[in-house]
């Protein structure tokens, strides 16, 4: 009989303890962010989809069209094309397509790139009405982003760069070899 009442009272007490806690929480300040008006700061390390690195001096991309990223991609979502301008030694990137619908954000492309021509974007508000909106044309994005930075984008520019004489053999990084995996 005593245990019967004891159980009722201890049970009631445990309920009151919980209610006191939620009451304290109810008067505590809220911890949420009022999203569309107020956004959290996003970490610089955020790995979104990939983008081409803009070289701010030349307003060019760094890509050497070595196809390493395309080969490293486990999902086959990268396809790129390059052309050799007349008289130039290196290829110039003309097309870079990322099929983001298939991308699993593993980062292999960025890490295998021998010249660090790829970077992660910090786009996270990705939503669209059709899957075609996620077939990114990175060259196009490059142009837009460069303009936003006040540069005149020279991506896919097939006219050979005029200032050749100053450094004849300095940037002779071979497009095929030695991608160390340290990032």
């Amino acid at each position, binding site marked *: 009989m005593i245990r019967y009442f004891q159980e009722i009272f201890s049970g009631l007490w445990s309920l009151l303890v919980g209610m006191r806690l939620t009451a304290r929480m109810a008067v505590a300040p809220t911890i949420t962010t009022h999203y569309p008006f107020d956004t959290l700061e996003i970490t610089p390390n955020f*790995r979104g989809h990939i983008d081409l690195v803009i070289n701010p001096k030349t307003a060019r991309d760094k890509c050497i069209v070595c196809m390493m990223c395309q080969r490293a991609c486990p999902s086959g979502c990268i396809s790129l094309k390059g052309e050799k301008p007349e008289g130039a030694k290196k290829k110039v990137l003309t097309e870079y397509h990322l099929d983001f619908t298939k991308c699993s954000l593993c980062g292999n492309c960025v890490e295998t790139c021998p010249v660090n021509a790829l970077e992660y974007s910090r786009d996270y508000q990705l939503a669209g009405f059709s899957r075609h909106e996620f077939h990114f044309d990175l060259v196009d994005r490059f142009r837009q982003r460069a303009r936003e930075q006040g540069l005149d984008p020279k991506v896919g520019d097939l006219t050979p760069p005029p200032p050749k004489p100053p450094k004849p053999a300095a940037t002779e990084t071979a497009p095929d070899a030695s991608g160390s995996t340290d*990032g």
Partner: protein
Amino acid sequence: MIPRPDPSQETLVLNMGPQHPSTHGVLRVVLRLDGEYVLEAHPVIGYGHRMHELMGEVRTSSGFYANVGRMDYGGALSFGHGHVLAVEKLAGIEVPPRAEYIRVITTEMNRIASHLLWFGAFLLDLGAFTPILYSFDDREFILDLLEHVTGARLTFSYHRIGGVARDLDDKFIEGTRVFLRRMRERLDVYDKLVTGNVIFRKRAEGVGVIDKDTVLKYGATGPVARGSGLAYDIRRVEPYSVYPDLEFEIPTATEGDSFARYRVRLAEIEQCLRIVEQALDRLPDGPVQAKVPKKVKLGPGDAYQAVEAARGELDYYLVGDGSDVPYRMKIRPPSFSNLSLLGEVCQGVLLSDLVTIMGSLDLVIPEIDR
């Protein structure tokens, strides 16, 4: 054999799932009910099957690695840890100690996050709506930290064969220390709100008792085994990584009921905090990435790597044929075995208890389906 309606009996066949609030994903449980009593429970899995094992056999190890986190969205880092360890074992790659410490720190943080996710979801199954928001508050803290170091919040893709993708920075270390202090205080909130609550105790105590023998027969692991009195934790029984250097206990409970599993998980959060604290203190300097050949050749031969994921023992069985693509990759996810005992445990329980039991097993369906 899936129960079918039988007009000769006064029983009801109820399809619970694949869309049901408490099956946590696309799990379907076919029940034969007598009133509210469950006569038979028959889990049907495979709705989220993506054939990860086949992908493991056609992709290189580093290419496949991104898939690993997709299996267990709750504890992606444990899955990644197991995968890189297995590959490194078969390829004979030495990992720098700093990288191994970083792996342990992040994995344990992820384990806490996973347990917090479970905590909220379990209470949601029992009809308490508020605890999930409190635990998500803490979980957000972890995810923010992990996002800072790995770049993603859920599918981290952080490990690399022979190391990790990015070194820890001071912001992460400081943030983690803040988190350790904060989490210890928050455990008190959970105790007050949930552990002591009489309704919760009545709902969880004595419900879904799994005895030791059932655990052995079905190969259940993780908190399910430890809640039944087996101190079976791969981090201790088969130490890997730097766990032998760290001091921590394996919390167990003997009752084997849902409440025991609940207690084990909460106690594990505390132990994870201890591990993270020690690992941070001992974090050695050095590189975080070993030199690995461009093509990581596997085998020939086979290797088995067991790690303790948040839900139990996770095993990778890799068979290599000398190329950089595994010949066979078998993943043994913990929830697979943990779920398989549901049919045996759920005989004669109430429908509400079935929800409790499923919740207490901490099922993650994508890892079962793979």
